[in-house]
């Protein structure tokens, strides 16, 4: 190594000649004031960058996420916020009994009922009808005349409902000459007539009574199916929580809580019953205030090209729809579709020589509806569409049945029903290419049966108002649970996707949902079921609106590296001097500290 300065170039020599003192000349020592000012300048620049630049950058590039009450939402989903109960008020009218006797009878019946009831969430509360004022009498007397218009009965049913909350009225009536108590449920009202022998009235001192046990058993029997359905719905939701509880928010306590919910109804539902309820529940549609019904006639050839559907509907279907109109409204449209071929994936019908029929394979039934070509789009307007398809096979492949079961109708869960109308049945009654009203009667009856099962109506008790009340409670319960679980899903989604934007509308929807859920829960506790259904409906609609918020679904993905790349021409040239000066300053400070 040569020492610096021993060898110099030509130019440097000249330089040195003119400035001989260069090597020794040093700048004057810097003033401490200058050093301080420079330090301050650098610090202030950095302060601007850190306290103004960075926040502005983060704020302008951040995604708006409204605050959601996550814990509360999860509580609802886990069933911790509300345990729905269904206390049913049952009024007992005993006009002929002394007050004390009646009270005692009610007390004993209640006792017997509580013994019978295994499902505590759904329980029957008996009370004595207070005073038999004249309006009550008037209402009670309506069902006596059997030739009443159905609408009128509903009117009176609603009147009753407004005035007092009792689900059922038990009317006790003494009747001479009968040995044991007898009961009769009126099919168009919510009154259970119980006839008893006068000697069956228990004395105030007795501790057991055959009449009380009889009434208790009868009531329990009436509401058994409803209890089973509600228990099933609750247990399903609890099971759903169990299977989907991957969230860190679900604490062990919650899990055990839902297990508790599940274990209780399980005693009530045996596996066979559960399977039956499960199939019914998957089949039935979600509740909606309006359903659209589309009746379609499909045929693979040009005939039949018309059907007397208008008169057939008026005769066979409209009465049914009118009677359900208290729960939901229906619109009906019909269409005729010619030249409707099967989709290529369906096997062509095979001829079964033994029975002289053509058969469809059972596994092809799911693809029977040619979704690509058959115009079965949902109707316009709010509410789900139920499709009922009447298929008239070609003359050459008739009669057409399902292989094995030889059935000619089936239903597609939550979508609709299909009936194959075989030509020889039709031939007898159809004129030319028109299907007569009589020819499509069996199909329409099948459709109306299928319609009821899509609505999820219970089969018992035989009284229609009671069935509708049951439907109200079932719907309220299922809406409550589904809205709650939507809340849970939304909360989990929010946690799982930190880059998803959450607009204020979602937050509002969540607030509305939660408040209506609370109303629903309270209304259920108080036994105000129509009010509960109303609130649950709003809660469900709001929950869905929040979950399917458009701006949330289409999330804009702007990765941070893209933002940096776009602004690199600014950040680079600005950042380098800032960092270099900061490093230099730090070095100087380090050196000066060392020197000290």
């Amino acid at each position, binding site marked *: 190594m040569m020492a610096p300065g021993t060898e110099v170039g030509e130019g440097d020599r000249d330089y040195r000649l003119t400035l001989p003192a260069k090597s020794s000349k040093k700048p004057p020592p810097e003033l401490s004031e200058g050093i301080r000012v420079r330090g301050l300048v650098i610090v202030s620049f950095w302060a601007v960058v850190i306290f103004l630049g960075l926040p502005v950058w983060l704020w302008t590039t951040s995604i708006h996420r409204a605050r959601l009450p996550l814990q509360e939402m999860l509580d609802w989903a886990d069933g911790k916020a509300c345990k729905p109960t269904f206390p049913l008020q049952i009024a007992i009218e005993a006009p002929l009994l002394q007050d004390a006797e009646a009270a005692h009878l009610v007390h004993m019946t209640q006792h017997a009922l509580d013994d019978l009831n295994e499902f505590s969430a759904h329980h029957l509360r008996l009370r004595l009808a207070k005073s038999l004022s004249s309006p009550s009498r008037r209402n009670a007397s309506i069902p006596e005349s059997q030739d009443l218009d159905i609408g009128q009965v509903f009117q009176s049913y609603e009147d009753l409902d407004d005035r007092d909350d009792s689900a059922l009225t038990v009317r006790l009536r003494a009747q001479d000459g009968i040995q044991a108590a007898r009961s009769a449920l009126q099919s168009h009202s919510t009154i259970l007539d119980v006839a008893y022998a006068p000697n069956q009235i228990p004395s105030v001192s007795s501790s057991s009574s055959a009449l009380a046990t009889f009434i208790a058993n009868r009531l329990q029997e009436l509401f058994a199916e409803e209890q089973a359905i509600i228990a099933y719905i609750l247990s399903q939701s609890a099971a759903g929580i169990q299977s989907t509880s991957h969230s860190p928010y679900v604490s062990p306590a919650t899990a055990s809580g839902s297990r508790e919910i599940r274990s209780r109804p399980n005693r009530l539902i045996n596996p066979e019953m559960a399977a039956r309820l499960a199939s019914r529940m998957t089949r039935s549609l979600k509740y909606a205030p309006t359903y659209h019904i589309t009746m379609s006639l499909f045929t693979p050839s040009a005939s039949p090209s018309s059907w007397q559907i208008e008169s057939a509907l008026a005769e066979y279907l409209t009465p049914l729809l009118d009677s359900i109109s208290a729960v939901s409204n229906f619109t009906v449209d019909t*269409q005729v579709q010619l030249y409707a071929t099967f989709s290529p994936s369906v096997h062509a019908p095979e001829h079964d020589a033994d029975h002289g029929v053509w058969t469809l394979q059972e596994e092809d039934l799911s693809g029977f509806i040619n979704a690509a070509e058959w115009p079965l789009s949902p109707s316009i307007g709010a509410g789900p569409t139920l499709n009922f398809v009447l298929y008239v096979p070609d003359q050459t492949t008739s009669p057409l049945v399902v292989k094995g079961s030889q059935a000619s109708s089936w239903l597609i869960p939550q979508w609709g029903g299909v009936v194959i109308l075989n030509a020889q049945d039709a031939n007898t009654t159809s004129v030319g290419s028109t299907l007569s009203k009589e020819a499509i009667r069996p199909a329409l009856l099948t459709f109306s049966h299928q319609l009821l099962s899509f609505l999820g109506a219970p089969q018992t008790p035989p009284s229609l108002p009671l069935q509708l009340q049951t439907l109200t409670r079932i719907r309220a319960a299922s809406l409550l649970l589904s809205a709650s679980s939507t809340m849970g899903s939304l909360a989990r989604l929010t946690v799982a996707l930190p880059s998803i934007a959450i607009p204020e509308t979602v937050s509002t929807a969540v607030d509305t949902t939660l408040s209506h859920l609370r109303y629903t829960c309270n209304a259920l506790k108080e036994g105000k079921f129509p009010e509960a259904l109303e609130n649950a409906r709003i809660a469900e609609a709001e929950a869905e609106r929040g979950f399917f918020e458009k701006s949330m679904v289409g999330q804009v993905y702007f990765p941070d590296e893209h933002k940096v790349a776009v602004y690199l021409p600014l950040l680079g040239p600005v950042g380098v001097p800032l960092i270099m000066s900061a490093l230099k300053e730090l070095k100087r400070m380090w050196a000066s500290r060392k020197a000290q």
Partner: protein
Amino acid sequence: MKYSFGPLLLSLLSCSLVLADPDYHERLNLQPLTPASLLASFNFWSKASLQSYEEQHFKYIPRSLGQILQHAKTRELHLRFSTGRWDDESWGARPWGGTKEGGTGVELWAWVEADSDAGSFARWVTLNNALSGLFCASLNFIDSTRTTRPRMTFEPASVGTNASTDNLYLLHGTLPREVVCTENLTPFLKLLPCKGKAGIASLLDGHKLFDASWQSMAIDVRSVCPADGSECSIEMEQTVDMVLDVQRSKRPRDNPIPRPVPSEGLRCDDTKPYAGSDFCYPSDISNGQSWTIAEIFGRPIQGSCLAEDSNGNPLDSVYIDVPNEREMYITSGTENKHLSGTCRSFTLPKSEPFEMVLSHLGPQTFNDHTTPPLYASRSFTGHGQERGGVQTLLTNPSLTSSISFVYFETLPWFMKLYLHTLTARLSTSSTPNPCLIKEKFYRPALDRRRGTQLELLISVPANSTVILTYDFDKAILRYTEYPPDANRGFDVAPAVIRLLSNDKKAPVYIRTTSLLLPLPTPDFSMPYNVIILTSTVMALAFGMIFNLLVRRFVGADEVEGWDVAALKAKLRGGVMVLRDKMMKKGGKGRKSINSSCGN
């Protein structure tokens, strides 16, 4: 002016027939236009009583369309999908008097029931969105800038309804940019009762239809309340018109590339003096043009579709305009020669295929095509990216009578029309003649809210041409308003011309072609350039200020800069060391080679 556009319009074609009145009928009219081209008009007509329609019992009126119309409270609908240009110089007047065709792309107009203008627009948007889904077309892009409310151009085709008393609003929208293709034909066919599986609709195939020189698909829905008080009904008419190039259509589908005709297949004109075995002057194709349905459309007709009257008698479905002396062969069905001498019709067999052969034997005369009542052509004038002009030539070919018509144009808002430059003059004079334009209806554009609407009542004297001109400015759009291929230009919707006649005849419509307007187009990498340039300027400014504040300024001789000499020496030393090392290594290597040789 009310008219019935079912049977009346059919009579406009040279083949006419009184129709029985079932709820559905269809007909195909084949009309050789010139030796080389063939006009095929498919017409499907269906009817339902208004009561059953409103109660949603659908039979031949399709449920999907019916529900949309009811949902959007639309009383009357006209939807058109068109491509190509009708060559009126060689093809003559338009089929159906131009009432069943639209401008290039998609055109839609409807009478919507509403309480107010705003309400009618809301329903119009609903209608467009629903139809957009049904027909797989971008109809949902008909927004307020593409919607107009014409005053004079359209009249309701419905009978027995009164637009003003029934609170009906007419809205009109165009999408000249839309490319009509198979995805629009498939839903169109699905609306038919036989779905294109039987009847004349089985000939409709996307490959042939969109290969045609000109084609137009139309859907018209109207209501008819007869004056005699009988039951109101709703009628729907679906029409497909296409002009096929016969030679082009006859090319086999699996081998569509045109090839030279083999010498034995050539038809030579033997009248030429040089005719001989070595020379061939190809004869005019009109001599002996023959074709079959399967050759032209790719397949025969697959049986009939509901072609029966109420008594079960078969109805004629296929009509052809050729002289009765020309020989034709059919595989099945019956032939029916009409008295006019140039028209015959056929019934279709129920379920077997129907094939028809038009032989080259017999007279080759073509029906003289009717001269169109008006020729219209429109083009841009001017140059540059700032302003331009439009010139429309309107020629009245009639030697005796003048003609008056409504000229209707919708211009996009970025084409800023100067109304004072709107002039009309006769082609023979150079000064504008103010008497030619009788009436003007003008609704100026609002930026990004609505387009210009211009309706002019013009009359053209006999045997003369009127030149209509106006100037416009081109607006500069916002960056995001440009479509993906902005340099292609912006389509301007065709002008619609409605001819006025004194007698109560069905109206005649003519449409010009669409125009392609080039707008000043920016460089689309501009935002990034702007970001980079701005960033650089800011960085420069920042660097300068920062250095001024932070650096210490000393005399030039006081700089403790880099000592160049020392650096040079260091570098030289390094090079020496490296070279030494290399030399040593090389020496070693050589030694080892030597030793290996020694061994």
